């Protein structure tokens, strides 16, 4: 028998106070070790869904299954759940609270019950990975938006969760920051971490996701392999999203679709050589 997926949402429904129906019967599966991109227009329910993945929001209908078992929302279960699932919010100001970046990053590891020494190592590793080690002693209110974002991500990475959930991780990061983030995510993925991220960025999803879920109006319209879903012009068009640039260029060139920039460059160089 197949082992149950790491996490599963079944017929998930949620409405905010005031009546906005944010999720309307949403089904989605998160397999162990995969990189899942949650794509969709503004207001599609991405953030609302992600907040269900660590029990922050409790569904009004349907349920979350963890390892095939219905999630429970008592204090102890939530604590155990959040040891396994890390969450990075869309706005870093919602996450940073401590007087300095390093202290903020130490918050999660200490809550895991780690020793001071072990926490210090985790903090250093996480900050270094995010390229924030030089700013470790800075107070968060003296950082740029992208730096805050990196600090917030470091705070979740330092907990080394089994599943890391990131809401719009690349929004507001410069090219170097985004590249650093991707390197960190690669490392986490290689170490076995399951990654779920919400994004508007089809190019980012094309380059990095194994699986893609398209959100619209509070449901998942399709979940499937990134190379299939994101190469389907009609399906993306219904969600008002463009094809990823590299996919479109690859189609125009009439060959294999390059997933990474470097692959695309090689491809076009080879074509130019053939013609010239």
């Amino acid at each position: 028998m197949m082992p149950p997926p790491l996490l599963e949402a079944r017929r998930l429904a949620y409405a905010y106070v005031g009546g906005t129906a944010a999720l309307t019967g949403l089904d989605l599966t998160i397999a162990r070790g995969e990189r899942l991109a949650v794509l969709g227009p503004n207001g599609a329910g991405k953030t609302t869904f992600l907040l269900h993945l660590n029990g922050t929001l409790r569904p009004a209908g349907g349920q979350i299954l963890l390892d095939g078992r219905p999630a429970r929302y008592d204090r102890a279960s939530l604590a155990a759940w959040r040891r396994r699932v890390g969450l990075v919010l869309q706005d870093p100001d919602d996450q940073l609270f401590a007087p300095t970046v390093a202290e903020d990053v130490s918050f999660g590891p200490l809550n895991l019950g780690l020793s001071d020494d072990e926490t210090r190592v985790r903090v250093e590793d996480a900050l270094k990975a995010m390229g924030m080690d030089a700013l470790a002693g800075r107070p968060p209110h003296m950082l740029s938006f992208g730096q805050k974002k990196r600090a917030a991500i470091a705070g979740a990475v330092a907990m080394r969760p089994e599943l890391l959930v990131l809401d719009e991780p690349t929004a507001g990061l410069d090219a170097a920051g985004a590249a650093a983030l991707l390197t960190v995510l690669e490392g986490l993925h290689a170490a076995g971490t399951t990654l779920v991220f919400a994004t508007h960025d089809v190019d980012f999803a094309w380059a990095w996701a194994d699986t893609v879920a398209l959100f619209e109006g509070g449901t998942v319209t399709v979940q499937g392999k990134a190379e299939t879903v994101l190469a389907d012009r009609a399906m993306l068009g219904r969600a008002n999203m463009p094809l990823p640039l590299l996919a479109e260029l690859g189609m125009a060139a009439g060959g294999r679709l390059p997933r990474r920039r470097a692959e695309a460059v090689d491809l076009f160089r080879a074509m130019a050589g053939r013609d010239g």
Partner: protein
Amino acid sequence: MASIDRLAQTSPWRTLPLAEKALLALGLLLLALVLPPWPGGAIVLAVAAATAIGLAGIPAAQWLAIFAAPFGFVLTGAATLALGWDSGGFRFLPDGAVAALAMVLRSAAAVSSLLLLSLTTPATDFVRGAQRLGLPPELAETALATYGFLFILQDTATAMHASQAARLGYDGPGRALRSLGGLAAALLPRAFERARRLETGLAARGFDGRLRVLAAARTISPIRVSAILATLASVAGTGLWAAWR
């Protein structure tokens, strides 16, 4: 407040143990109060200012600007000592002038000593220090969280103000009043919403009611403490010797 905080956060002395900085600053403060104002006060003032600007990296212009505010009050106070008032109008009092000068020197020395501490130590370090001296952790954490929160609110208010101004919201007193009212009204629910989301963020990292963080370890250095004590002793010695000579 913001500029003092900014200076303190970026001062190279920020990472020194609070106890060392407090020893130096409070030691100088004590000397400012007990030494004869001339030349003791002047020496304390010179040492405190030179240390802040030369060693602790506070830009001289900023130091002067921050020093000027309390110093203004001191000068006004001194004027009341040096000037008398009778039927002939204002009159200069020679005895009063000496007393006024002594007061100015003493106060300036005291202010500069305290600035040495407050311009090199972020408010959050003071709270941590108070916690080590027995302030309950719940109170300390609330103070620290509120402090951080103030900056976010200030940023929000600044950004909202700029955006209102960009849309001509401050064109004329009537509009300015209305815009300001709108800003204040928007800030409160925004603060609540922000607090709620902050709790979500904390809960995601295992918040259980205690805001545990790992503060950087700052070990007290015997060398620096000796240097501080030597400085205080030589200021005291010079001050006393010069006054009794």
